[in-house]
């Protein structure tokens, strides 16, 4: 039954993203949950929320694992089951999918899903090392290949195969920085120029500083329930009508191609099939622009354009605000910021705002179908969800 709602989102919350000095994950997550509670006055969170599934990537940042109960402890959700999900940068995309299964299972009626990461208190070298843990240790980490390095390998291959340019990649950054200026919760609130992007410091050639998403602190959450009772909690639920997830080799080098993420293609196709929709039906999308090249790959892998046409698509302005398919209206990982564990449900938060007409001066008029695309590591995990205005 394509297009049948799996679950409904009845509320959502997001902490301010940025350098949040003097806070810990648990405190940022409390900030996000508070917003979600305040948005949903018919809900009694302590009584009604039955479980928590939370994406969190790295125990090294705060030397703290066992994140599930820690966050439940700080948000009044004890003694409910509270489980940490780790799929690298797709941790909360996976948490969302797990929450959907929890509702569909019949074991739980209302659950919270979310994610959190606190990163800015660590040095760049430390963050570089912690992020690299999501890549293959014995061959990639062992050979000094960083996370930007893995996406750089994809960028070089894409440039070589399709003629994609550094300027086209910079256009992604320019668009997403612009969108970020319209999002008060975004980490960055400043426009950038092509010149500035092109002249920024090289991180892993051809990727420069402005091709890379931000090291950010933040948290996000959603409250999910069964579609048939959603209206009890809000007048404007958003239905999730497609969920696709797939995996690929941990090592980038093990894959047949470097110019496409197979897991993202499969996850997207599964989500479209479940929703009974096609790429052209999507009105607004949040895609995983951890690096600018990743947004171009997303256009192609999600069928928004043909293989190799990602560079052309960004140049044509299709994905700008006001274009036919605005992408990363929130500012994306590039400008809103990328607190890795929080990203998947932060993408869903933006789509929730868009489909309930709460996105203020970045609102996509008349948007009814939204999509999120959350990628873990160099593409070993991909999680795609499709949303419909109720």
């Amino acid at each position, binding site marked *: 039954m394509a297009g049948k709602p799996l679950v409904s989102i009845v509320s959502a919350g997001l902490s301010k993203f940025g350098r949040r000095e003097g806070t810990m994950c648990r405190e940022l997550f409390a900030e996000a949950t508070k917003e979600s509670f305040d948005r949903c006055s018919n809900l009694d969170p302590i009584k009604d929320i039955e479980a928590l599934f939370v994406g969190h990537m790295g125990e090294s940042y705060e030397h703290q694992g066992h994140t599930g109960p820690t966050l439940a402890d700080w948000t009044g959700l004890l003694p409910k089951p509270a489980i940490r999900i780790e799929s690298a940068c797709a941790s909360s995309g996976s948490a969302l999918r797990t929450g959907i299964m929890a509702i569909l299972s019949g074991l739980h009626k209302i659950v919270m899903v979310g994610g959190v990461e606190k990163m800015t208190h660590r040095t*760049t*070298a*430390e963050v*570089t*090392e912690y992020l*690299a843990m999501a890549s293959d240790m*014995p*061959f*990639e*980490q*062992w*050979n*000094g*290949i*960083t996370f*930007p*390095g893995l996406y*750089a*390998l*994809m*960028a*070089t*291959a894409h440039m*070589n195969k399709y003629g994609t340019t550094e300027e086209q990649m910079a256009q992604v950054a320019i668009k997403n920085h612009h969108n970020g200026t319209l999002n008060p919760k975004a980490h960055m609130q400043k426009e950038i120029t092509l010149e500035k992007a092109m002249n920024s*410091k*090289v*991180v*892993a*050639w*051809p*990727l420069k500083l402005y091709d890379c998403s931000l090291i950010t602190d933040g948290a996000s959450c959603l409250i999910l329930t069964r579609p048939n009772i959603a209206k009890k909690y809000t007048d404007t639920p958003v239905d999730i009508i497609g969920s696709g997830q797939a995996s690929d080799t941990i*090592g*980038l*080098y*093990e894959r047949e191609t*470097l110019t496409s993420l197979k897991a993202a293609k499969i996850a997207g196709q599964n989500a479209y099939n479940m929703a009974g929709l096609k790429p052209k039906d999507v009105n607004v999308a949040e895609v995983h622009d951890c690096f600018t090249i990743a947004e171009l790959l997303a256009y192609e892998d999600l069928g928004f354009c043909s293989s190799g046409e990602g560079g052309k698509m960004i140049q044509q302005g299709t994905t700008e605000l006001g274009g036919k398919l605005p992408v990363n209206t929130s500012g994306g990982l590039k400008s809103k910021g990328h607190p890795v564990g929080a990203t998947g449900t932060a993408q869903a938060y933006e789509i929730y705002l868009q489909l309930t007409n709460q996105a203020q001066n970045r609102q996509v008029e008349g948007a009814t179908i939204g999509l999120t695309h959350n990628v873990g590591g160099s593409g070993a995990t991909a999680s795609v969800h499709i949303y419909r205005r109720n």
Partner: protein
Amino acid sequence: MSDEQQFTISTFYNFVNEKRLMAAKCSACGNVILPPKPMCTQCLSTDLNWIELECSGKLVSYTVIHVAPEQFQSLAPYIVGIVEFKNGLRLPGMINDVHFEDVKIGMDLKLCFGTSTSSQWPSWSRYFFRPV
């Protein structure tokens, strides 16, 4: 079970220490597996053998790492790439003894053997690539 009979990454690096590039070959379906895995991921057989590969390959993609993890900071900037051997098997690694400007996708590279660098875990040997 002797170490050589374990189709593990550790055994792979033991061979690297002996200056040999070795992969696992499945006796059931002929699949050649690099990095080696204890079970054929194509047919799930554990009836495997080691085979030696030639060290010559072609560059599939590359980058230059400027921002490195602490452990590699003294080497930065350094070139890393993915190299394809015969049968389409691939490994990533550093590309040494070449200028960045001379690196081209498709160029011929050779896998070379370094030395064991650490007494801590993992005390694996190193390999790297170099132009032919």
